């Protein structure tokens, strides 16, 4: 990479650090540190919500998914606008009006301390681990492409984020998020423009070629609960998932609790509703254009350089044979795609159809050889191939112009840092408000809690960096915790839904929560098997059902 690109990255990291630390001025009290004195404008909160949700893996993994699988992943977000509108008229007024620090604090007022403690404990367990994976995912990619030790990649993202979050609190998180979101969108649009300029065919031809391989297919109306990305799983399962995430996850709830009023909080959520689907479509479209770009430029057999090095060391003969075959099928595919472009230019309908069929056959040949190479890499490394995460980094490093490489990598760092910062801030809030102040020291001074909050942020930051550093060896453990996390997302949503039902009682909420998690665990382990997007629906419905039943059975106190 050119020194100028490194300079851009270093300048960006220093700027973020200085800007974040500068925000410490307004955080001399606990309410300022965790909730910015409930004074932030809706647009800043809205951009912060979006930045938190857009992680580094969205920029590098989702673009890769667009390149290999096409646009259909966008269906995953179809429920988001509806969820935001529902939250805007239900939970947001409840939580903002209750003047709480955490969503779980509200549950004690409505039900009891054990429901609050269980939900906040589950949040800490899942988010503590997921914070590590949020750092680990891009850090592993950086390590592979630059050949760095994983510790350095983790430190590059983790240290500045921990420092500015610890010192500046939620003010720093939000205002840095605003700038990071602008950088991310700029980088995405710039890459899309570069791709359109660099492609040797018109955008219309590019989309027709991508469409021939199924990559322009967006909607799948089949109703199959085992399929993850369908219109129905997106609209129904996605709505419940987004309700759970934005309505009950402290990393999101805390964003809109910082807004000046209920209406500002609602408007900040609606900003996500506005832009999420178009933005996600843009991310996937960039991936689709990268696929078309590599029809005219020879892509590597394996995008992951670490896998490529490992296979070359262990199986040089097998790799050389695959590379020879790959070169041949790539040349044939390129010839076929050029015939498609010429036929479309000539406006010859039947010739276009024949050319597209021929191109599809050649593309299938390329995929066969790539599939064999990926299987070989998996055999050599003993790990599942995540080659899809390396498509975009490879394109950025080898084909983007000087300066834009640095901007795109800074945008990936920005996406990672904004997600990590929100997680650390919310983990510290729950630790201090729901546990330390509730159970350990209820009568401390504001200054004491502020000090403990900063220490908690720092400790969670160190914990997340350690988890990220050992991500490779902790892989299966992290997966178990993440899977366990999916058990209770919908169930916690169910508890909040119960909170809005007047007749619901504490015992109904607590037992309902456990029943909801058990129901999700049952379907997760295959009785019956359903895709994860439906887990939240099952969890929430079970909690509400069991909760109402138990509440009705409980005699009112005389």
């Amino acid at each position, binding site marked *: 990479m050119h020194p100028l690109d490194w300079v851009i990255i270093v300048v960006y990291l220093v700027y973020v650090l200085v800007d974040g630390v500068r925000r410490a001025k307004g955080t001399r009290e606990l309410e300022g540190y965790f909730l910015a*004195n409930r004074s932030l404008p809706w647009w800043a909160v809205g951009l912060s919500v979006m930045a938190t949700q857009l992680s580094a893996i969205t920029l590098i993994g989702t673009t890769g998914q667009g390149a290999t699988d096409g646009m259909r992943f966008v269906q995953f977000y179809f429920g988001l606008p509806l969820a*935001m509108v529902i939250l805007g008229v239900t939970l947001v007024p409840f939580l903002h009006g209750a003047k709480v620090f955490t969503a779980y604090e509200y549950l004690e007022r409505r039900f009891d301390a054990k429901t609050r403690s269980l939900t906040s404990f589950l949040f800490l367990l899942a988010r503590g681990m997921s914070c590590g994976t949020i750092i680990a995912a891009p850090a592993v990619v950086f390590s592979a492409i630059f050949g760095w030790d994983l510790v350095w990649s983790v430190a590059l993202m983790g240290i500045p984020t921990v420092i500015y979050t610890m010192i500046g609190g939620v003010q720093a998180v939000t205002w840095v998020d605003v700038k990071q979101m602008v950088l991310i969108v700029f980088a995405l649009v710039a890459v899309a423009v570069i791709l359109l300029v660099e492609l040797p065919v018109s955008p219309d031809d590019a989309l027709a070629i*991508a*469409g021939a391989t199924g990559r*322009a297919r967006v909607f799948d109306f089949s109703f199959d609960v085992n399929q993850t990305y369908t219109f129905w799983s997106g609209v129904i399962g996605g709505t419940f998932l987004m309700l759970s995430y934005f309505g009950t996850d402290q990393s999101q709830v805390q964003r809109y609790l910082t807004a000046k009023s209920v209406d500002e909080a609602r*408007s900040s959520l609606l900003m996500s509703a506005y832009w999420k689907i178009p933005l996600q479509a843009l991310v996937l479209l960039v991936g689709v254009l990268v696929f078309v770009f590599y029809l005219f430029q020879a892509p590597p057999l394996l995008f992951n350089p670490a896998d490529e090095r490992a296979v070359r060391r262990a199986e040089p003969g097998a790799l050389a044979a695959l590379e020879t075959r790959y070169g041949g099928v790539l040349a044939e595919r390129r010839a076929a795609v050029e015939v498609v472009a010429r036929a479309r230019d000539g406006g010859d309908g039947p010739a276009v159809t024949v050319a597209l069929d021929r191109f599809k056959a050649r593309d299938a040949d390329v995929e066969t050889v790539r599939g064999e190479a990926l299987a070989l890499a998996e055999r050599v490394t003993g790990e599942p191939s995540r080659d899809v995460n390396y498509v975009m980094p490879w394109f950025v490093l080898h084909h983007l112009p000087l300066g834009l490489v640095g901007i795109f990598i800074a945008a990936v760092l920005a996406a990672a840092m904004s997600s990590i910062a929100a997680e650390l801030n919310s983990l510290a809030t729950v630790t201090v408000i729901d546990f330390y102040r509730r159970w350990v020291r209820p009568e401390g001074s504001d200054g004491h809690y502020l000090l403990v909050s900063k220490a908690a942020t720092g400790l969670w930051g160190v914990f997340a960096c350690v988890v990220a550093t050992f991500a490779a060896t902790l892989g299966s453990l992290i997966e178990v915790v993440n899977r366990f996390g999916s058990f209770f997302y919908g169930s916690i949503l169910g508890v909040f839904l119960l909170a809005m039902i007047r007749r619901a009682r504490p015992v109904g909420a607590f037992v309902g929560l456990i029943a909801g998690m058990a129901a999700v665990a049952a379907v997760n382990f295959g009785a019956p098997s359903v895709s994860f997007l439906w887990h939240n629906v099952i969890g929430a419905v079970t909690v509400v059902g069991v909760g109402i039943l138990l509440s009705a059975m409980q005699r009112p106190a005389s």
Partner: protein
Amino acid sequence: MIPDPTPPDLGSRRFRRTLLRVMAVQVATLLLLWLLQARYTG
């Protein structure tokens, strides 16, 4: 705590207006995605 300078009715009006815009943008986006699929998927 800083008091909210926005009067409640003004805030609600803005929320309703934003809500309408959100729905319009979603319909337009889904329509565009549908056109993308209809035009380019054989």
